Every structure is written in C-alpha cells, then in structure tokens.
C-alpha cells in the first residue's frame, strides 16, 4: 500500500472516529437556517437572494473545521514522522486534503441540495448547485490547507485562520454564487473548476513548505 493511500485511509478513519462528518454538516445547516431568519421568510425575496447564501454557509463550515487539520499532527509529533516518510510531504498533504474533501466537502455538497431547496432555489438547478459545491469545496480546501499549515503552531488559531483564508475564498464564492443564482452558469462553472484545480495544485506545496518550517 502506498504512503498516499495509507495516509488517506487513516485520515478517513480518524476523522470518522472523531465525529468529523456531523459537526461541519450541522454547522452548515445551522448557518443556512439563519438566512431566512435574518431576511424574513418571504419566498420571492428568498428565491432571488437565498441560493447564493448557501455558499456563505459552506465557506463558513469549511473554515470552522480547518483549525485542527495540521495542529494535532504538530502537537503530538506525527508531523516529524510524516517528514521521514518515503513519500514527499506534499503528497501526504494532498492525501490529507483529499480525505478532508471526502469527509467534509462531499457531504456538504450533498447537503447543499436540501438546503438550497429550503432557500427556494428552483428544483432543476439543484444538481448543478450540488456539483458546484463539490468543486468549490475542493477550492476552499486547497486554500484552507495553506491557512491551516501557516497557523498550525498558533493556539486557538481558529479566528486567525478565518481571517487569513477569507479573502482567498472570494473567487470560488463569486463563481459558485453565480451558479446558484443561475447567472452565466457555464462560464462560472468552468472558472470555478479552474479555481479548484489551481488551489489543489498550489495548496499542497505552500502548505508543505509551511509545515517544514513548523517542524524546525
């Protein structure tokens, strides 16, 4: 079994064991629930303004789970061992990101369906919104890896991570929200895909560089 696969499988089971799936999902649904509470339940208003807000909830949910991603490994010494692995640290970081997408990103995208319906998105647009959320989550996580890596040594760094990654969440939120509200969908989806590819290409390198510094 390659080191990549080993790490991927272990992360899945560790995240699963720590109830990793339910917390961000609950957070996502909870944040989305606040939307009609803030705007009022008027269906016409929700139909125009609601669906893009799914993206705010998704961004918040990913952000809230980033803090411990590398911090735990730094604190218990696992990071040192990862650096001595046969596989390059960049590949291990990518594996971690992939596992994170499976446990947090994909369920969020699926939960995006009922949440968008509740926010009055048209039914025929739901598959597209779910697909876009899945792609967007990859972009969020790619950036999030860097945010989590540079703040791994900071105690209670949750708010700091949020501040650091928020501006970089802007492009996926812009294109994702455009898809959710049905504007210029095709172009937006392609660019969103580009954002996700770029973030997964650059994120692991920057994050691994930061983690090497953390271990110094």
């Amino acid at each position: 079994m390659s080191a990549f696969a080993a790490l991927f499988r272990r992360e899945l089971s560790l995240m699963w064991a720590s109830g990793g799936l339910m917390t961000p999902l609950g957070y996502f649904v909870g944040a989305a629930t606040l939307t009609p509470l803030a705007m009022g339940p008027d269906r016409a208003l929700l139909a125009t303004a609601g669906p893009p807000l799914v993206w705010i909830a998704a961004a918040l949910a990913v952000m809230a789970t980033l803090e411990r991603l590398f911090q735990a490994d730094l604190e218990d010494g696992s990071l040192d061992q990862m650096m001595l692995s046969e596989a390059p640290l960049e590949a291990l970081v990518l594996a971690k990101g992939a596992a994170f997408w499976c446990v947090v990103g994909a369920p969020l995208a699926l939960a995006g369906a009922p949440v968008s319906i509740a926010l009055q998105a048209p039914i025929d647009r739901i598959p597209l919104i779910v697909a876009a959320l899945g792609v967007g989550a990859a972009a969020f996580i790619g950036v999030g890896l860097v945010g989590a890596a540079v703040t791994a040594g900071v105690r209670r760094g949750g708010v700091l991570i949020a501040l650091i990654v928020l501006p970089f969440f802007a492009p996926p939120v812009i294109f994702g929200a455009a898809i959710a509200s049905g504007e210029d969908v095709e172009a937006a989806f392609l660019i969103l895909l580009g954002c996700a590819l770029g973030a997964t290409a650059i994120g692991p390198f920057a994050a691994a560089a930061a983690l090497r510094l953390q271990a110094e």
Partner: protein
Amino acid sequence: MGQSHPFSKSATLRVEGLSLRRGQRQLAEGLSFVAPAGAFVELRGGNGAGKTTLLRTIAGFGRPAEGTIVYENLAEPALSIHYVGHLNALKGSETVAAHVGYWAGLFSSPADMVEVLGRVGLERQRDLPARVLSQGQARRLALSRLLLAPRPIWVLDEPSAGLDAQGRAMIAKLIEAHTNNNGIALAAVHEPLGPSPSITLTVGG
C-alpha cells in the same frame, strides 16, 4: 527485517563545527564528532543545553546556524533516519495494531507486525486504542516504529522517558542489535542507557 541485511560498513555520520541557535539564543558552538557504522553516541547536557535541537538538526528538521552535517554513503536524511522524540506521535482512537500498520505503510515497509510488537513487548495490547495505554506502553509503541523499516541511523531523544527497568533493558537490547548490525544510534540521555557508548558528547556548558 534489519537483522538479515546488515547496513553498509562505510556509512558514516560526520558533524563538523556545528553551531545551534534557538531564536536569537546561542545554544551550542563548534560541535564536531564522527560516528562510523556501528557507533552508539550518547549525548549529555542539562536542560536547555540544546540536545533536542542538535538531534532535530541531525534528523534534518532544521538547518544548523553554522557548520555541516555529512551523511557519508547514506541516502538523504529523510530516508535513512528514524527519529523518536519527546512526543510519541500516537492518536488516541487508533489501536496499537492500526498504528503499526499505518506507519509501516508510510515507511513503505513489509514489516512483520507480530515480530515488531513482540520485540517491544506489546503483543497483548495490539487491539487496544492508544488512549488507554500506560505511559510506558505508549513509549514502547513509539519505539516500535524504529523496527518498521530498516534505517541505518536512529536518533533518539530520551528514549527511556516513562519506561521502567524492564523497558530500559528492552531499549538497550534494541540499540545493541542495531549497532551490531552496523547501524548508528544517537541518544540524548539523563542516565546511561546500558550499552557502552562509543562516543559521549556533552552539549552546552
């Protein structure tokens, strides 16, 4: 396993004029030593003298402020070194067997789990999650990673921390087997580990 294939006799760890810093703080200056294949290097020195920094630098985690470390006839440090530091790198929810299996995957080794756990005395705990292990058992599990892949250099930071007399005897046996196999072992210690060191180095004042 390592026993059947001894390491190269020509492998040498050469440390020349090493200076170490933590932040702006000077820790040690002008450290030099040569550890040939089969050497056991004992590091001594008080708290804050820089033993851990020295070991981490040799393991390749940090760069020395001055001086060089030469790994002669050895692969790059990341592939020729095992490091066991103060932290055991265990995850509370993971069982002993899962931990060993996982790191065997990361070190790409076809290690025999029963043999490895036998040598560190954890055969009976193999299905226990790490969070219920005693301090000594957790340390044994951390040390078991040394046996997963044959790597010529062992870098150990107070390996006997938390271990009883039996555990210390186990470490002594592991180190002896390793050096007899042409391996190089470096250990920061407070009291002698057992095997007579070929080099004793005092770090700091």
